């Protein structure tokens, strides 16, 4: 019944149309074929910016710092690096249109880094963005995208969503790609007219040699080269020669950071019945191996000769934190460049 289909399709348009009526809504969410016809038009003069959308380390959701997510914006194009819970609303806050996302990169499969992948896939699809979007991440990414697509099949079939002569299946709007298990040198994993992305494995995971996890679990750092500037994002990592190699000469090193004394203080709030005190030293030692302390960040930044450092994925990154010196104390002796403790939605 064409009339009904027409109105169903129109409803989609309506819902998208509200975006323009609301000042705080996703500005580019409305299907906009005029703009899409020339996606690179503004790139020539564009200065790339890295936006820290979420600066907290997960998985406890905080009020002041959203879960790990970043956007590289160049001209009209957007690239997401990790998509933790809340990423899409953070994008609204940063006035980044979902419709302009060209690719998603996932550093590792901890849930605080990928919890909103399905939401992002569905939103793009909802607003008729059908160009297959690369979703590039550790082994398991392709399976994750497949299963999320299965989960959203019922959404595709629900009235409205399936209107106007049929929308494409969500699965056809994404192009997932698993990174190689072994990546010991900076390796090109993506390239288009704006950016070139290189990846390398880092040291976030330390599983017993030979274990199932050691064979399959991988965490990566990314280097994003643009015409103007180069950004390196550590992902979650401990001290790593690989990351040092990847970060050589970068303009901006976006690094995770852990404030060990603050973490220790947090842990000591737990009663001994939950956290036996004799386990504490070993836990702390492991955290120092899996994450980067300011001292290690200083060494990394100096050895890689980066021009500036941005700290994100703050651990503990607690709500109401006012003294941020624990995230930077120890960097200065070895690294003399500018260091910024990022806030959500800050631009670099």
């Amino acid at each position, binding site marked *: 019944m064409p009339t009904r289909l027409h109105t169903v399709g129109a*409803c989609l348009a309506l819902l*998208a*149309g509200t975006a323009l009526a609301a000042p705080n809504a996703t500005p580019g969410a409305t299907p906009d074929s005029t703009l899409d016809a020339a996606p690179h038009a503004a790139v020539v003069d564009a200065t790339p910016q890295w936006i820290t959308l979420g600066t907290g380390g997960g*998985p*406890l959701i905080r009020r002041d710092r959203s879960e790990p997510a970043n956007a590289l914006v160049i001209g009209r194009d957007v690239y997401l690096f990790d998509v933790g819970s809340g990423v899409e609303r953070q994008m609204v806050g940063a006035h980044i249109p979902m419709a302009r996302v060209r690719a998603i990169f996932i550093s590792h499969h901890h849930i605080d880094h990928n919890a909103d992948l399905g939401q992002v896939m569905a939103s793009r699809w909802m607003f008729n963005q059908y160009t297959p979007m690369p979703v590039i991440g550790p082994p398991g990414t392709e399976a994750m995208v497949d299963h999320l697509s299965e989960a959203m099949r019922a959404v595709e079939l629900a009235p*409205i969503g399936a*209107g106007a002569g049929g929308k494409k299946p969500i699965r056809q709007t994404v192009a997932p790609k698993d990174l190689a298990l072994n990546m010991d040198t900076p390796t090109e994993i993506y390239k288009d007219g704006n950016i070139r992305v290189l990846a390398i494995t880092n040291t976030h995971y330390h599983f017993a040699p030979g274990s199932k996890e050691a064979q399959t679990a991988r965490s990566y750092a990314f280097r994003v080269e643009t015409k103007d500037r180069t950004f390196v994002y550590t992902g979650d990592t401990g001290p790593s020669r690989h990351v040092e190699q990847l970060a050589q000469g970068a303009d901006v090193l976006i690094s995770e950071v852990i404030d060990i004394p603050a973490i220790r203080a947090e842990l000591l709030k*737990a009663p001994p019945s939950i956290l036996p005190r004799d386990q504490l030293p070993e836990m702390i030692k492991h955290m120092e191996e899996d994450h980067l302390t300011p001292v290690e960040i200083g060494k990394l930044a100096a050895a890689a000769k980066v021009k500036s450092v941005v700290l994100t994925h703050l651990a503990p990154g607690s709500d109401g934190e006012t003294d941020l010196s624990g995230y930077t104390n120890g960097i200065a002796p070895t690294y003399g460049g500018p260091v910024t403790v990022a806030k959500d939605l800050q631009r670099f």
Partner: protein
Amino acid sequence: MKGFTGAARRRLHIAAASAIALSVFASAPAPAVDTPAALTWTTLGTAAGPVLYAQRSQPANLLSVDGRAWLIDCGDGALERLAALHVRAAQVDTVVISHLHMDHIGGLQGLLGLRWMQGARQKLTIYGPPGTDAVVAGLVASLKPVAAIDGEQAGHDDPAALVEVVTLRDGADIDVQGVRLRAVRNSHFDVTPGHPLENGTQSLSLRFDYKGRSIGYTGDTGPSDAVARLEQNVDVLVSEVIDIEPTIAGIARAMGQMSPQAREHLIDHLKTQHLTPREAGALAAKANARQLVFTHLAIAGPTDDSRDTLINGAKEAFNGPIAVAHDLDRF
């Protein structure tokens, strides 16, 4: 190598370690649910989807049942709104879904994943319309790459063991933790019988009765006698609402002028599958509801700018108190 050494077991992801540290608070009742009534409703997200807003989160609500946290719909941003109330994902043990549009379920992936990672001990039960089981099965399967890394080694169970689905259909009338939960099929998904869109799922309106208090929730619907019958004499009717004119104006701005015919079709669709303020008021009157609360606001601009329009429209048909909810308002 089989099994794991003690050292490996204690090698916790930093976030998991923080979770343990903070789990000390989990044993105490959650601060957010120190509620005066046994059954209260907090609007977590008051926007109509699928467009996201900075000020209004996507459809989600917290039903507090003697301090237990239930989520009624779980759109994007639900977890962040819960965090604002100091409620962690792991504390939610019941979710009820009204219908399978993404704006009502976009937060489920995070809820399942973060509950698992936060070491939730209680199984999550998700009640929803036909098709919910497939949604949840897909989401659980999508956690496999995550669980393969931090599962057994970090002392976590299989994510699949942490969730179960109960399908709700038109006419459902069940007891959940002492709450009488009822559901009827509403008119949001009305399509011509036999149409390809008739895919077996349903859009539901819900009703919750507990210790003498009753709260009705329209979900997304157009005018519907079935909903009016379900919500008879509720203390609070939480209703969707759409302000048609500003929305149409928004489309006109975005896409140029519509033909009169297209405009007519659009209005017809909105009026039959959503509720205008007046129709929502009429529904509340027909249901003899004590109070009407508007959420799922399909409006332009800030909430308070539309407040009078919505309330005045509803007043044409309903005499009781009417509220236009903001995120985190409690009823």
